[in-house]
């Protein structure tokens, strides 16, 4: 009996481990070089009955990719024979770009997207209300061009092709690029 229990526990933990491996291959449909793990939205993977439970935290409230990602996660884990897969949405703590892995940041840069700077300023982390500077053309911190590395860049548009990005251009190499906004 003891051996059987151990076997069950081992198979459950092996299942969770394999599910994590599978999740590293599930890509964000809007930035298809980042896996859901690189993006930092997989908060936990648990053994649940014969299958697994994946705990996800959404990026933006209105991100249209949220449901696509949930389905992709279910399909990938089921296809690996580890299902049935249950998705649990966990909203708190809210997702922050600080959860994007170093590997994810490297992949973003190689893909031509400038990765986000640190979002958790002390005043925000403490839960205090962040002061908003209501001044025309707020000077944004310099964003490095992901192609040539120059910090001489300018923002073209505060919003971009998806909720998570803004548009920039490099004044050195003249290339336009996207920037993953820190939130």
């Amino acid at each position, binding site marked *: 009996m003891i051996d059987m229990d151990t076997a069950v526990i081992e198979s459950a933990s092996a299942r969770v481990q394999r599910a994590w491996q599978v999740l590293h291959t599930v890509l964000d449909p809007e930035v298809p070089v980042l896996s859901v793990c690189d993006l930092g939205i997989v908060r936990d993977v648990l053994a649940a009955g014969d299958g697994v439970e994946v705990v996800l935290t959404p990026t933006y409230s209105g991100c249209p990719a949220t449901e696509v990602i949930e389905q992709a996660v279910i399909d990938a884990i089921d296809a690996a024979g580890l299902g049935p897969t249950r998705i649990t949405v966990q909203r708190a703590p*809210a997702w922050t770009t600080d959860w994007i892995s170093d590997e994810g940041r490297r992949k973003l840069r190689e893909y031509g997207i400038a990765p986000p700077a640190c979002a958790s300023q002390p005043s925000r982390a403490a839960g205090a209300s962040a002061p908003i500077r209501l001044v025309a053309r707020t000077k944004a911190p310099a964003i490095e061009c992901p192609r040539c590395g120059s910090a001489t860049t300018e923002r073209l548009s505060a919003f971009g092709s998806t909720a998570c990005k803004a548009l920039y251009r490099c004044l050195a190499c003249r290339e336009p690029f996207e920037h993953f906004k820190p939130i």
Partner: protein
Amino acid sequence: MTTPSIQVELSPSVQYLLRLGDTALILGQRLGEWCGHAPVLEEDIALANIALDLIGQARTLLTRAGELEGQGHDEDQLAFLREERDYRNATIVELPHSGAAGESRDFAFTVLRNAMMATWFRLMWERLRESSDAELAAIAGKAVKEARYHQQHSADWVVRLGDGTDESARRMRAALDTLWRYAPELFESDAVDASAAANGLGPRWDSLREPWLAEMRELLADANLDVPADSAFRSTGKTGVHTEHMGYILADMQHLQRAYPGGVW
């Protein structure tokens, strides 16, 4: 029009959430009207992105309202199958983007309303992070970051246009004259928010008045715009009594669900 309307049991907590959710929903719907029509491509994208965030926030709020109501109503039923009187958005968000000269869409009107509403939402979300309802607190923790970005962007435009050319300043003054009288509704308290404050669901709306006014005064000063005088006019959208514009928005929004009940993508 074949799908019957749903009846919502409007407890104070459900009303409190519908007021927030409907205000986000209707503003998001209004901003969607700019898609393909904004003065420049960057602002077309910006307005669509802001609309998307607002509709995402509305979805979570309406879902939570349905859960608290306990009658099995989901976000889609609440968004598409209520009668006008059951929508509880503040009136300011249902006004069309019309300019003083009769243009169907006036960008000055849009950016000023966005600045007023993003400031209000940001203050509201900051308070709602402390809600006794864990789900609402979690929704607020996410939405406050989005509102902060919306506020920065729209405030930036208010300054550029208010302190811009004669034409842009004239349009901003006209927009301010129209919109300012609708702000008091955002800061009036009644039995609904008194109940929410008592059980910790969320703040009384009148507690946001002073911080909002302080930020708006600073913004309008930067934009070289005078704060309008107070008016005795009071709008009443959050109690379900709307302007003549509301029915047209709902006709647009509800048409598909009424014609094709339960239709999904």
